[in-house]
């Protein structure tokens, strides 16, 4: 019991509000905006580096900044990874495995 109490009192003051509802919703919105920009400008050459190997064109730079601002770093990486995975799957389905990637 003592251990539990000690544990409970340790981080008593910090509440990470950036994972609560409002913050989450803001994060999702900026995330969607950024990825929509990527979809829209998909014909442009990706020059900027996002994370985990994702590249994006310079037009979406502002949205990217907002995205990174609103969301935790680990979440940004997570969403980028997810986006790359989905992109790969859709590309596979569209090409039918013709392009080797």
């Amino acid at each position: 019991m003592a251990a539990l109490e000690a544990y409970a009192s340790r981080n008593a003051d910090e509440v990470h509000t950036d994972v609560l509802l409002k913050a989450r919703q803001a994060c999702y919105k900026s995330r969607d905006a950024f990825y929509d920009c990527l979809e829209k400008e998909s014909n442009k050459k990706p020059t900027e580096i996002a994370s985990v190997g994702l590249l994006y064109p310079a037009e979406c730079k502002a949205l990217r900044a907002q995205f990174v601002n609103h969301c935790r770093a680990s979440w940004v990486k997570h969403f980028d990874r997810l986006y790359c995975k989905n992109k790969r799957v859709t590309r596979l389905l569209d090409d039918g495995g013709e392009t080797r990637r």
Partner: protein
Amino acid sequence: MATAIVRSAKNFRNLHQRFYFHTLLTKCRPPIPSPTIADNIQHRALPLIQQAIPFGIGFQSFVADQRFSSTSTTTGTVQSGHSKPNSEGGDKSGDSNQSKSDTGKPIRGGPISWLSFLLLALTGAGIIWYYDKEKEQHIEEINSASQAVKQGPSVGKAAIGGPFKLINHDGKNVTEKDFLGKWTVIYFGFTHCPDICPDELQKLAAAVDKIKENSGIDIVPAFISVDPERDTVEQVREYVKEFHPKLIGLTGSPDEIRNIARAYRVYYMKTAEEDSDYLVDHSIVMYLMSPKMEFVKFFGKNNDVNSLADGIIKEIKQYKR
């Protein structure tokens, strides 16, 4: 004539069969032919073993009759036609045997007739119909057997669940005994989860409301953190507040979390990227526990709100104890 006798011996078996069938067909006719009306018999009845020799003759004349298409009246034409179609008749006897039987209306009654064909068809149909029925029955049995197994959790319960000692979001120490008496749905996650845990918890909250609305059953949703280092009581409290007023948040010491995760077979692993900002990889499962805190069923990520609510209601209704 001699060749006819030889061939008659060969064909005897055939003709014996035909005779048998013919007797079935022509019960009213005298089975034993008399020598006086030999020519009549040539058309209709097959002679017995004593009549082998005249039989050969009769056989020839049978062939002859077909060729001449004469009726049974005159003996003279029959006998005169002997020598001429003798050899040809003998040659043709083998295959004309078959062709005669195939053409349907044999004058003598061959082994294959319309009646035998009909009987065969009926038997075949009967067998197929019987087999069909048996197969249907068998399939029914399998279906009902598989249904029966699903309905009886007494067949063997999964060893999931167990005692635990955690802290709820109000800071109170709780054990599994505090959950007895009501149905509980437990979800393991962590507050720093980007998208999956919020979605699942929202789904769970909506399902709880739906179940209450549809069947009036009270379900207690519980959220257990697999990230005890970051998920303090306050953190958990703030987190679960936003989903549902009845959602209970549980956290505890890392040891306790490890124990309960093992009891519920939950996988969780810190993706150690940086020190404070990491994600926890974990299995995405909701556990439905009975009022005795025994495991009943789990629901994966693929269920939407409706299927989750319906699934839970079904399990509760089926739960007999």
